[in-house]
């Protein structure tokens, strides 16, 4: 029934995916990170501190909420929401930021850097930097910074320096490159808090492990509430950290269907998408082999999604592996469907979801009505929608 899932390999591979595609100058530091992380994992003191902050600072465990009105309205499967939106700073991103913040101290480093797209991971990193007394620099595409002024201010308020990246397309992928470049030159005292299950080994593993608390809690909670495992687990996917966290502890339970939901932007065939698996192919960038959106000569392509947090051309290598081995399936939802789900959850449950999470809700709204009433779906409500309210208002007014 179950078989042991042991990935990545010692070389950082998830099957053919992942790996360490980085400049020679980073190899020593990644090696150091690998060793330190392994030590930290086996150190009860480290685990204790992580658990303490998860409980007392982040506010875990967060609820697995039965969305009764949404369930009844859709008329099919029972829908549970894993409430990552109730975490401190309002999203799942803080789980990883706390873990890597502690790891930074464990390694004896005093500074952290991070990339950010919309600003969520930047805010989470700046938050943990403040809490742990670490110096913090956040790299953000200049275009993103202009679009997310309030988050830039938030990070500054928390004591971080925001570096606006003008290179390339001045968006998230360029912020990733620039953070890497900075890191190479400051490795001695600086740790790079990578924000998703991306990048060279051991990052995809580290981020997944810290995020796996989502499914660890959800599994125990559903067993307590329903006395059985769910039939389906659904999460939105940009780089894929909340989905990996939501899937991880269910991977060995073969009867639990794992569904990732990518951003189909203006329409899956519109060319304006952020759907690396549904519309991309295998390539190598940002340190790993993974699915990504690229043109006919292997250049990364620009992406589009209404949700900034999904607006990234690649997908974590472990997702590529789960897709290739058919352990997980990857669906998609458009901007319109996400906007619709955003409003629907607000009205039926009094919960305003992040636009990212709205993609997962949108997919659930598609499949739940067709499913029998005794089926159970858990959906990761990865973040709250306060940050998106202004934009949604503008989008809805434009449609009137």
């Amino acid at each position, binding site marked *: 029934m179950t078989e042991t899932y042991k990935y990545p390999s010692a070389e950082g591979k998830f099957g053919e995916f992942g*790996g360490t595609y*980085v*400049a*020679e*100058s980073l*190899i*020593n530091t990644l090696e150091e990170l690998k060793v330190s992380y392994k030590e930290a994992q086996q150190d009860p003191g480290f685990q204790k501190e992580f658990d303490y902050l998860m409980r007392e600072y982040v506010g875990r465990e967060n609820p697995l909420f039965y969305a009764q009105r949404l369930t009844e309205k859709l008329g099919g499967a029972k829908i549970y929401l894993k409430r990552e939106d109730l975490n401190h700073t309002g999203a799942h991103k803080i789980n990883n930021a706390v873990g890597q913040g502690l790891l930074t101290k464990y390694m004896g480093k005093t500074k952290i850097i991070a990339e950010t797209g919309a600003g969520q991971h930047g805010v989470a990193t700046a938050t943990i930097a403040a809490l742990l007394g670490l110096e913090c620099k956040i790299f953000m595409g200049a275009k993103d910074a202009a679009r997310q002024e309030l988050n830039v201010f938030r990070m500054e308020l928390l004591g971080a320096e925001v570096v606006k990246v003008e290179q390339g397309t001045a968006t998230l*992928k360029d912020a990733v490159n620039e953070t890497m470049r900075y890191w190479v030159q400051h490795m001695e005292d600086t740790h790079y808090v990578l924000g998703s299950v991306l990048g060279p080994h051991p990052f995809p593993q580290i981020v997944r492990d810290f995020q796996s608390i989502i499914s660890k809690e959800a599994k125990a909670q559903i067993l307590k509430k329903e006395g059985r495992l769910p039939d389906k687990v659904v999460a939105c996917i940009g780089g894929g950290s909340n989905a990996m966290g939501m899937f991880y502890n269910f991977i060995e339970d073969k009867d639990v269907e794992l569904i990732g939901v990518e951003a189909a932007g203006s329409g899956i065939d519109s060319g304006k998408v952020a759907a690396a698996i549904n519309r991309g192919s295998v390539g190598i960038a940002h340190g790993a082999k993974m699915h990504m959106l690229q043109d006919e000569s*292997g250049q990364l392509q620009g992406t589009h999604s209404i949700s900034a947090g999904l607006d990234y051309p690649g997908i974590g290598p472990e997702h590529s592996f789960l897709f290739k081995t058919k352990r997980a399936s990857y669906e998609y939802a458009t901007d319109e469907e996400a906007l619709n789900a955003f409003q629907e959850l607000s009205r039926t449950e009094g919960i305003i979801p992040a636009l990212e999470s709205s993609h997962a809700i949108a997919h659930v709204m598609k499949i739940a009505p067709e499913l029998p009433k005794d089926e159970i779906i858990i959906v990761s409500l990865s973040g709250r929608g306060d940050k998106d309210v202004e934009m949604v208002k503008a989008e809805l007014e434009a449609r009137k």
Partner: protein
Amino acid sequence: MTKTRISEMFNKLKETDDKAFIAYMMAGDGGLDKLPYQIKTLEEAGVDLIEIGIPFSDPAADGPVIQRAGIRALNEHVSLRAILKKLTEIKSDINVPYVLMTYYNPVFHYGLETFAEDAAAANVSGLIVPDVPLEEEPELKNALAGTGLAIIRLATLTTTDERLANLVDGAEGFIYAVTVNGVTGKRTGYSEEVYENLARIKEQSNVPVCAGFGITSAEAAETLGEHCDGVIVGSQIVEMFHQKEEKDIKNLIPKKHGERVK
């Protein structure tokens, strides 16, 4: 065997106790039609080997100058395929060995086997792939087996002795020593540590060791050259082409086949 051109070049320099001057240029910067002219210019300036840069959308190991050159080339819609086609057309006019410096994805996306054939047909002597360290090399190495293309490995000042032993074992062409821990671009001065580490790498390596990253003058090239088998100049040359100052490239070269210019 195309890669033998690299060792022939080094052997010839050795006879006159000279050091190699290796120039990096970005293919397609200014349009692909400029490539024959750029290569000719470098050749006439006295360059011993040319690194032909392939533009990539996400050049994580490059500084601002080469990043911008890459974007200019991409705006000209220059692809690896078009570059290899052009090189195949003009290969008989090129009198120095040349290698490609490329991120892995354009090569991977090309199809490794097809790439190996096309690159060999274009008389390319080797490849420098900054995002393929030793750990990830086997896939590429298998594809290139029998083509005569060298995989030129990078070593850094902080590369441990243990790792260095693995790096030099089976090294081809030359070892590309990164003299400054960082990305490509301008730097000032080198420390004793740089020289000591170059000596350490040279001692272990059975292929020539060339040092790159950060050279902007003939003086710097000469000083660094004394501690290795050759120097690599990139950003400065890219910028000179861009500013239409390519006639000055020869002033970066501290010697010409044994005869000191200065």
